[in-house]
């Protein structure tokens, strides 16, 4: 089966500082791929390259290819708005907009021009159910999204991403601001979501990578050191540096 996303020889620079070196990696459809590594290893930059979120950073430059279903998202003909619709993102800090819960989830569909109330209601309900938040918020859907707890806010952000029917969901350390119970909820949710979506998660937490993912990539100093089946990578790392990292010798 062809990969959902294939990156080929990605180099990435902030100004003159190179943060990614020749990263080549295939991401399988309907699976969870974890990217781990110590802080500053380039894993988040790599993730943000997959839906061109780095475009908004001045003086950032990328070379190489990112193929989504075989077509390069950095080519001149590509519509970046379309890419971001297909490849959604959940951020490290839950970032609900200062709007009601309903309007947060309805935001994406509205931007696509859907304004029909009953249609929006259906989408919002479906998305909140898919993000396992519906039962908790169905009676206060017009309350501000900022009034929710951290874990609920993060699930709201996931629901919001789901509402535009993405194919891929990128998660940038989605649990690092959450307590263990909320983290567990998000991890269970990811497990349900991978039936319909391709998920790529960045984490600095090895246990999390081992728990949730089928594929794991280990980044160090801007390089993809090792990439493979999660069970293999944790049991029989091929690279000495991977072994050092997962046995806790650094990082």
């Amino acid at each position: 089966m062809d990969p959902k996303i294939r990156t080929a020889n990605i180099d990435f620079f902030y100004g003159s500082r190179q943060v990614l070196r020749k990263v080549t990696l295939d991401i399988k459809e309907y699976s969870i791929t974890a990217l781990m590594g110590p802080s500053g290893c380039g894993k988040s930059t790599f993730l943000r390259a997959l839906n061109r979120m780095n475009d908004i950073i001045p003086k950032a430059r990328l070379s190489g290819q990112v193929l989504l279903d075989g077509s390069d998202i950095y080519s001149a003909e590509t519509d970046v708005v379309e890419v971001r619709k297909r490849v959604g993102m959940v951020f490290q800090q839950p970032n609900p907009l200062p709007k009601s819960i309903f309007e947060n989830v309805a935001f994406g569909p509205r931007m696509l021009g859907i304004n029909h109330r009953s249609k929006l209601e259906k989408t919002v309900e479906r998305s909140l159910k898919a993000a396992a938040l519906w039962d908790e918020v169905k009676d206060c859907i017009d309350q501000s999204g900022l009034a929710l707890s951290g874990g609920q806010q993060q699930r709201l952000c996931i629901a919001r991403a789901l509402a535009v029917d993405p194919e891929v969901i990128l998660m940038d350390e989605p649990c690092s601001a959450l307590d263990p119970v909320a983290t567990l909820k998000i991890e269970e949710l990811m497990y349900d979501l991978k039936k319909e979506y391709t998920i790529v998660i960045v984490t600095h937490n090895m246990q999390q990578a081992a728990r949730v993912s089928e594929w794991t990539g280990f980044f160090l100093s801007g390089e993809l050191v090792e990439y493979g089946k999660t069970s293999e990578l944790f049991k029989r790392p091929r690279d000495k540096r991977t072994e050092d990292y997962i046995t806790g010798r650094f990082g």
Partner: protein
Amino acid sequence: MKLSPKATQRLAWGIIWAAGIVAMLSLLVIVGYILMRGLGEVDPEFLLTPPRGGLSGEGGISTAIVSTAYIIVLTIAIATPLGLGAAIYLAEYAADSWLTSIIRYGIETLAGVPSIIFGLFGFALFVTVLHFNFSILSGALTLACLVLPVFIRTSEEALKAVPRSYREAGLALGATRWQTIAQVVIPAALPGIITATILCIGRAVGETACLYVTMGSSAAMPTSFLSSGRTLSLHLFYLAMETRALDKAMATAVVLIAIILAINWATNWLSQRFRARMTGG
């Protein structure tokens, strides 16, 4: 001589308190004096009859109130769309280049230019070249030029204070850049933009020098934006300088202060309601 830390602490505390009390007292004295001299003159007749003109300063201030309302509405209608556009350009679109640094430098400089110079510019351009004559339109256009720099700077700061995570949220959902600005950034910056608008209204209500040379001094009821007119502060100026009716001037000042307080209170209330609605308060 060296003071112990405790003594410096007490000294600093004393100085800071003294400074605060002096500032409060001078405000109270000014407002109190004006209220004492002017409040007795403020009655329905004063508010609802036009000035009779002449040296006596007899009559009320109805036409000045209407002129002031005209000036505020027109100035804000001209300045806010232009200013918001410029602020959005500077905060969201413009990259740092020599062009934007010239624009920023120009704005900083204009913010410090005395208002009479704006007045002369308005007189030359709007009154003379464009033949708007001495009119509310000329006055409002000149005032708009005067308040634009402050409005642009204050709203640019408000836009820049919107967290990047909001922009990322919008963009990551497939919103275009403009959709993100219009639907996410501007609503989040609205309290700050409202504050910028209040500052402009305050400036417009208080300004005399630049209106003196662009708006004329007609005490008649304005019939259109092309009528001449006098705002409350201009009327106050005429009363104080050219008539013997100092008590009427004080009464006008009372009304002016009341209007400014009312506008501040109303806008504060508005922006607090916005904030409450956004955060679920």
